[in-house]
């Protein structure tokens, strides 16, 4: 039982990490109509910037904002140099141009920091476990990731629903000319939104650093998982991203945790059971995506219009 709760929480934690990525990606897609493959690179940049800063200064509190700022700046530079020229293009051009960016960022990271993964320590004040329910301990750091994700979700909701910039974002998505008529510099607005999305990706990267290896290619794996989240949740919908992320996080984690034992129970040969379970759990979320697609081709909570 304790294991079940712990694994469920691990799934929620992965879910919130995916939500940070999916929210940024879907925000950018919903408003600018751009599909940005290099979103995973921004995740990586956030993780590297924080990891290197933490290694130099020994302080997570310094590393954290540095990671955010680096990811946001990288995002805005990408927007200014490349993505800005892709708003009027079809999605295929957007995919290919940002694919070129991934090649560049990955190789640049290898040149600068090598192929060896960086390991980041959990800051001492976030080490240890806390009791969740009677008899169940959960690592504090992972719990903090859940909290940060939750706070970000709430913050995003208020930003979009309640603030002036949120109003412009909503208006900009449906009517560029109207926003322009209000005297708003839409180019600047887009750059800011892109920077915001990049910062969310960077945040996910920073938080992921201490619980997994920071290495080249980390962005792409999680990017494709983020696509699955968006397809399940519904393209362009933040609510959908939230629901999809939690579903994918929990399903993926639970299958990896419990399928091998279940299969060993059912099958005679232990090694074959492990191999099969490994294969199925690696494919699990994709199968889930296929099922959702069969029932609701537009995703669980599609954006309106």
């Amino acid at each position, binding site marked *: 039982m304790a294991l079940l709760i712990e694994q469920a929480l691990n799934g929620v934690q992965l879910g919130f990490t995916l939500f940070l990525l999916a929210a940024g990606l879907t925000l950018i897609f919903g408003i600018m109509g751009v599909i940005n493959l290099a979103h995973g690179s921004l995740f990586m940049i956030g993780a590297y910037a924080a990891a290197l800063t933490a290694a130099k200064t020994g302080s997570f509190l310094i590393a954290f904002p540095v990671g955010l700022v680096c990811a946001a700046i990288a995002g805005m530079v990408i927007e200014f140099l490349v993505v800005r020229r892709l708003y009027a293009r079809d999605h*295929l051009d957007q995919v290919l141009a940002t*694919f070129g960016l991934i090649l560049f960022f990955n*190789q640049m990271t*290898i040149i600068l920091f090598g192929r060896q993964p960086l390991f980041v320590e959990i800051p001492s004040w976030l080490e240890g476990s806390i009791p969740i329910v009677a008899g169940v301990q959960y690592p504090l750091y992972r719990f903090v990731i859940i909290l940060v994700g939750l706070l970000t979700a709430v913050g995003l909701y208020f930003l979009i629903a309640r603030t002036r910039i949120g109003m412009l974002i909503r208006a900009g998505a449906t009517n560029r000319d109207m926003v322009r008529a209000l005297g708003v510099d839409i180019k600047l607005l887009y750059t800011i939104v892109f920077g915001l999305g990049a910062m969310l990706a960077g945040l996910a990267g920073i938080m992921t650093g201490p619980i997994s290896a920071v290495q080249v290619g980390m962005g792409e794996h999680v990017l*494709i998982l983020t*696509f699955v989240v*968006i*397809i399940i949740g519904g393209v362009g919908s933040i609510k959908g991203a939230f629901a999809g992320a939690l579903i994918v996080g929990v399903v993926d984690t639970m299958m990896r945790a419990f399928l091998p034992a279940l299969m060993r129970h059912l099958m005679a040969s232990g090694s074959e059971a492990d191999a099969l379970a490994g294969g199925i759990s*690696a494919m699990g979320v*994709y199968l889930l995506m296929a099922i959702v697609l069969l029932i609701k081709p537009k995703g669980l909570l599609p954006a309106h219009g």
Partner: protein
Amino acid sequence: MADIQNTVHKVAPAKPKNVRSHLLIAQLIVLLAVLPYLANLFGQPALVSLATRIIILAIAAASLNLIMGYAGLASFGHAAWYGLGGYVVGILYRHSVTGDPLFGLPIGSDQMLITVPAAILIAGLFAAIFGSLSLRTSGVQFIMITLAFAQMIFFFFVALKAYGGDDGLIIRRRNALPGLDTRDAMVWYWICLGVAILWYALLSRIVASRFGRILVGVRQSERRMAAMGVRTYPYKLVAFVIAGMGGGLAGALMANHMRFVSPDMLHWTQSGEFMFMVILGGAGTLLGPAFGAAVLIGLETVLAAWTEHWQVILGPILVLAILFTRGGLSGLVRLVRGGRDD
């Protein structure tokens, strides 16, 4: 109704253009056929292997072009069919060596006439399954979902430890073909060239056929196709399956060429490269993908000879190509094209 009769034009249009492009294609085939001799003449025998690789990739790219260039369906998962084709060859070879049964059947072969058709069929079968789901979406969702499904197949083979998992499968001997020595680099080159010519000829027929006209219409306006009374889904699905079969064919040849298969063949960057070959050469043109494959692989080879970090240069080149040329070499290719608008 009075003016029906006074216009009976019987002039067949564009004959000279057809003759010219047929001539160019004939010249190209002759040039490709003698290429191994030229390579040896200039003391570059390694060129034969590189050219074989380009030809095989050109088969895969042309298949992707059928759906992406002609029908406008941007699949980001083409490497799945390519990799599946490769694995069919690898797995059949493994069983022909060990003699172990597969699914309880005494399956296993190192005969090209068996392995390659098997690869084509298996790839087509899976393309039918995943295509039928993916084609329920369109636009950016279609891009994402084809990528995600390909990734699923990638993870399947990574987890498939029985066939090497991450490390892949080594094929010690190239599949045999009766009467031909496939282990000879030049013979192997000609085999691949012959297969490629056949595949391109087949695609050129398909593209010009009634079926092909429907695909071209789908790209331009789904709404108009519906107003014509055409339900487009089955046509898109069949095109998707044909593209998958072509990918499987290319993968089967590549597995033989490298004598090795691994999940790398299924990697999403491979799908991205196929898309670039189509776009660089000119989407929706018959020979475009072949030129695109040659340009991309040529560029990679040149850059890789220069620096191990060639991707740091290739990436920006590709970005610039997309931003500023809108389809790269397609202007050139249009001269010799056989497709798009008659």
